[in-house]
């Protein structure tokens, strides 16, 4: 790379991130979550526990904030509801909204550059991968995640969380993590891997809807849609296009401001791969 080259093509290199960086992306897995459809049933979270061998930590540790749920359903209440009643209860009867929060697989993820041993990196699939065996547990990645979506194995769970015969229900497609290791949502990378392998064997491309993540599969209202953003025919790509939400920007410029799609904390320029669609509220509530 000569100096001349840098000077002439600087703007191109600068723009790189917006056009997918310098990765040659095979896929860019993404999600669209319709919060209007979410009923807060936590089926996605449970499915995630089953699929990804997540440890059940017990009540005390959960209350201490040491839980291992890769996908958590965040609950928020409308402010108007709280202020109208004279004594605002902590959890009012109505006005709740739910927000399933998993790793947003940011395309310029803040967790990646800070890991001292490069245990977390970006894959050509647009995923933010975590290498458990490489992790030394400095927990810097979690500190630098605005979503706080990285979970640390504060204890060793492989003996206590799955007593016999429950260890038989562990998913053999991925490992059980030991203490001192960071882990997080992988978009069910083992399913992605299997689908890609199958497609390769059959000499074709991965079809949209051929497989999906455990959370999307379990969702009773189909609020979660998963797919390949690079495939223009995929459901998720269509939803993103319909909502006029683009990757690679920190502020969406929409033709139609009525569109509900948004990405959480995109103003931090982290470029998340998950689009949420705002909940539509009846104004009377």
């Amino acid at each position, binding site marked *: 790379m000569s100096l001349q080259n840098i000077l002439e093509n600087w703007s191109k290199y600068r723009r790189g991130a917006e056009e997918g960086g310098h990765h040659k992306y095979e896929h860019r897995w993404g999600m669209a979550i319709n919060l209007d459809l979410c009923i807060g049933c936590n089926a996605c979270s449970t499915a995630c526990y089953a699929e990804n061998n997540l440890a059940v930590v017990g009540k005390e*540790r959960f209350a*201490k*904030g*040491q*839980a291992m749920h890769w996908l*958590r359903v*965040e*609950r*928020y209440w409308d402010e108007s509801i709280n202020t109208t009643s004279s004594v605002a209860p902590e959890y009012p009867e109505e006005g709740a909204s739910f*927000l399933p*929060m998993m790793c947003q697989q940011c395309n310029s993820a*803040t967790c990646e*550059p*800070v*890991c*001292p*041993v*490069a245990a977390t990196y970006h894959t050509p699939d647009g995923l933010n991968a975590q290498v458990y065996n*490489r*992790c*030394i*547990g*400095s*927990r*810097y990645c*979690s*500190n*630098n995640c*605005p*979503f*706080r979506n990285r*979970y*640390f*194995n*504060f*204890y*060793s769970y492989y003996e206590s969380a799955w007593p016999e015969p429950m260890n038989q229900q562990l998913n053999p497609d991925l490992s059980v993590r030991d*203490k*001192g*290791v*960071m882990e997080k949502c992988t978009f069910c990378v083992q399913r992605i891997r299997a689908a890609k392998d199958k497609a390769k064997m059959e000499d074709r491309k991965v079809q949209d809807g051929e497989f999906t993540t455990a959370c999307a599969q379990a969702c009773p209202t189909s609020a979660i849609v998963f797919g390949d953003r690079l495939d223009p025919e995929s459901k998720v790509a269509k939803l993103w296009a319909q909502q006029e939400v683009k990757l690679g920007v920190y502020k969406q410029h929409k033709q139609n401001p009525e569109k509900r799609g948004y990405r959480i*904390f995109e103003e*931090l320029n*982290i470029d998340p791969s998950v689009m949420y669609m705002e909940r539509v509220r009846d104004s009377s509530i």
Partner: protein
Amino acid sequence: MIEKDIDEQIKWAKINADVLRSMENPRRAYWITFFICIAMMACAVTAEIYQYNTGMGVTNLNNPHMWDMYIATFVFWIGMSHSGTLLSAILHIIHADWRKPIYRFAEAMTTFSLMTAGFFPMIHLGRVWNLYWVLPYVSDRGHWPNFRSPLVWDAFAISTYLSASMLFLFIGMIPDLAICRDNARGWRRKIYTVLSLGWVGSDRQWRNFRKTYLLMACFLIPLAVSVHSIVSSDFAMSIMPGWHVTSFPPYFVAGALYSGCAAIITLFVMLRYYFRFEEYMTVAIMEKTAKLTFAIAMVWTYLNLIEFASTWYGHDIYAKELLIAKATGPYAWIFWTMLFCGMVVPFALAVEKFRRHMPTMFVVSLLLNLSMYFERWMIVAPTLSMAHDPHQWYIEWPSIVQWAIVFGSFGWFGLLFLVFVKVFPSVSMYEVKEMVFHRRRLVNENAAKEYSRRASDRKGAGGTPELKGA
């Protein structure tokens, strides 16, 4: 009040005798302190074994709160190490010779606090047995650390600084070790013979020694500044509110010098009292140290206010909310204690009456260091408790395991220091002699004339007269 830093009539033999006396026959108080330090360390070792076997969860760390007291204490100890370099290297270069009686223990403090600080990143790692992965060692799998990570820079910076400051401490001690060698018997004599590297005090040795010492001083100054800047980038390089602050590197360096100077005052008072070093660690030197501390305190105050102002008038709503939460939330008592002890208490150093009163200075220096510890806590904890996502707001206080390890780190530091003062001279004998030599010449007018004549004479300028005195 104009006062002598040191009595220029003091005899060479008396200096030797006083310092060598401090190195022998520990009194009972010494052994009591020694065993208290060992007991404190035992607490930490027990806690660490428990934590190692059980998992990091016993520290009460949790999801938003991944870093905690360990990192705050790490930054605190790294900060403590800076004043030794300030006294021995910066003041050496600007020829402030009042540093001479007190720089040796400050330099030792640098090394020992770095040795203490180095433990904390290890203690806090989830898988400490893989610690060496942050170093770029040769691996047949071609694995490298992530050079973009500030933690890797930390590993380089701290190990460089530690080795350089140890070397500097050692080099500065060589002439003194030779004096020890000449006066020691038994096992001590053997050790000092090896350590003094055959020092006989010849002209050539002094010349080489001066050059090396100056070179090391020049090498150490940028290192000291860069180490704490790099520690600050652990925070400043992240995107978290309250951490992502451009002024962090100078703010950290100022805070480091501040807490280090306060620690020097603490140890100054203790050594002066314990070893009866009143003739060397004089009130006049204490006054100068206190003035220096006051100046640094004001720099720190200024940088603190800058940080608040830039957050307040900035456009980062997260950082602004966090600043308000710091001042009003569950950490408010720590925040206000920090500001009071760090910004108001140092004004005691501006009052001459207080500066000259050793017990007051002792208490003030402890309060300043309390403030600096709280400052580190206020940097690490609130940001994690109240970051971007309100669902993950969570206040958590350290468990007894963390307290035990932090407590034990003070024992470890104390132990190293106690061993040091009995094995090595904690006052630099040859440099005190140099200082006295200069003062004598300045008092004696004829000698002063002779000195200026020789200084202006180009031929004579080469033979720096002060070297012969030591």
